[in-house]
């Protein structure tokens, strides 16, 4: 399975797209494959503060429930409201319509601490 080369990644299988001083976050194709069909996604409200490495939401699938961890600290400036009624968008396009939140970073330098696409590829290879 491929993962986009222009994103950054976490060990928990979240992705982050840094654009125009903001960062959009979702979960990777690998995470989606592990979860199976997603039935419920709980996300914070716009304006909420998130802290790097701590829980910001929950994904329920048919088989399991998983926490979402913030890749960086900051303030939530956008939430993908479509996921409330159509959580399957994450299964269908984890890097596109399945995005979850956009964060205004407290410290833009935290982005550089995340895994590069190459490093994430190595992580996936080690878990295969």
């Amino acid at each position, binding site marked *: 399975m491929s993962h986009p080369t222009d994103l950054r990644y976490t060990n928990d299988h979240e992705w982050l797209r840094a654009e125009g001083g903001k960062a959009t976050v979702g979960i990777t194709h690998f995470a989606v*494959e592990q979860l*199976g*069909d997603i*039935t*419920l996604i709980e996300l914070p409200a716009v304006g909420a503060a998130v802290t790097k490495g701590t829980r910001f939401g*929950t994904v*329920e699938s*048919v*088989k*399991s*429930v998983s926490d979402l961890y913030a890749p960086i600290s900051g303030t939530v400036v956008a939430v993908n409201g479509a996921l409330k009624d159509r959580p*399957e968008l994450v*299964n269908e396009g984890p890097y596109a319509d399945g995005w979850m939140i956009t964060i205004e970073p407290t410290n833009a330098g935290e982005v550089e601490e995340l895994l590069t696409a190459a490093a994430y590829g190595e992580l996936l290879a080690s878990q295969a």
Partner: protein
Amino acid sequence: MSDAPRKRTPLWDLHRQAGARLIDFGGWDMPVQYKAGTIKEHKAVREAVGLFDVSHMGEATLKGPRASEAVALLATNDVAGAPAGKAVYTLLCRPGGGIVDDCIFYKRADDHYDVIVNASNTAKDLAWMRECVGSIVPVDDHSDETALIAVQGPKAVALVDALAGGGLAAMGSFTFTDATIAGVRCMAARTGYTGEDGFELACANAEAPRLWTALMDAATPLCGLPIGLGARDTLRLESRLPLYGNDLDDTTTPLEAGLGWAVKLDRHAFLGKDALVAQKARGLTRTLTGFRIDGRAIARHGYNVVDRSAADPVIGTVTSGGPGISVAGSIGLAYVSPAVAAAGTLTIDCRGTDVAATVVKGKFYRRPGA
């Protein structure tokens, strides 16, 4: 995690080719889902037909002049009193009433019974049967030579019947017969674990890929799919069929689990009978209770049922839970006291959030016409 290689069914290569995601299930490398995913697989079984590889289940034969005496002792249901050709769901209980396993016996004759047991319990069950009745009848294990394929859904019976050249559609529920299906010798039972009509077909390992391929070729034009363990679980839960290891275990009794219909306290003597008679006279302290949560929150296995006004707020435990796919809301089963069940509402601690649930009597899903 064990380093032992996972066991493979004879259909493992076909599952891989079909794009199955394989997981460890009790030491077996089993499909949890195929490419379609659990929800589409579930719907295929409700609306068309699905094929399940359940070859990991255990198969044994009890054959000998005292076989009926042996199964009467082991089984809570009246297996020995059933006519030949009947498949009988039963519990195996310990003397204290705890459930060793739930299983189906197939009565071929008064001196010949086959039995199919849960995969994860096969070794335990065979040891239990041999310990209890091994001195009066041999318990022959065929698990390693036998494949089992379930064909389930509204289009299942016609599909299997056509591949058998007719004769199977007239079979009654919970009966079985030997048949040749797509050229493969099978034991065909009108049974299943989905709430749908259909068959479970047992055959020799070597023949299983040929049978599976023939069934799949016939199912595909009917919008049929191969079905993984994920949908097997959502299907059985909607139909309120218990799962050993979740809803049943060595500490629960059939009466607590709502399986009293499979316990014949007024007929034969069996292991656990005295304890179950006493429990019935005493009254139950807990009962397996169905519930529905409006909305999408899911109460999963192990979550607590709570009463925040009580000194000890934990008043029960969820044993199974998942999203309703053919029914609204999310659904589950929990052990609570009969008084709590009768009150009609439950509060469940879903990862730190108290969620209200409504008690549901009977099956969550009932197929049209059933």
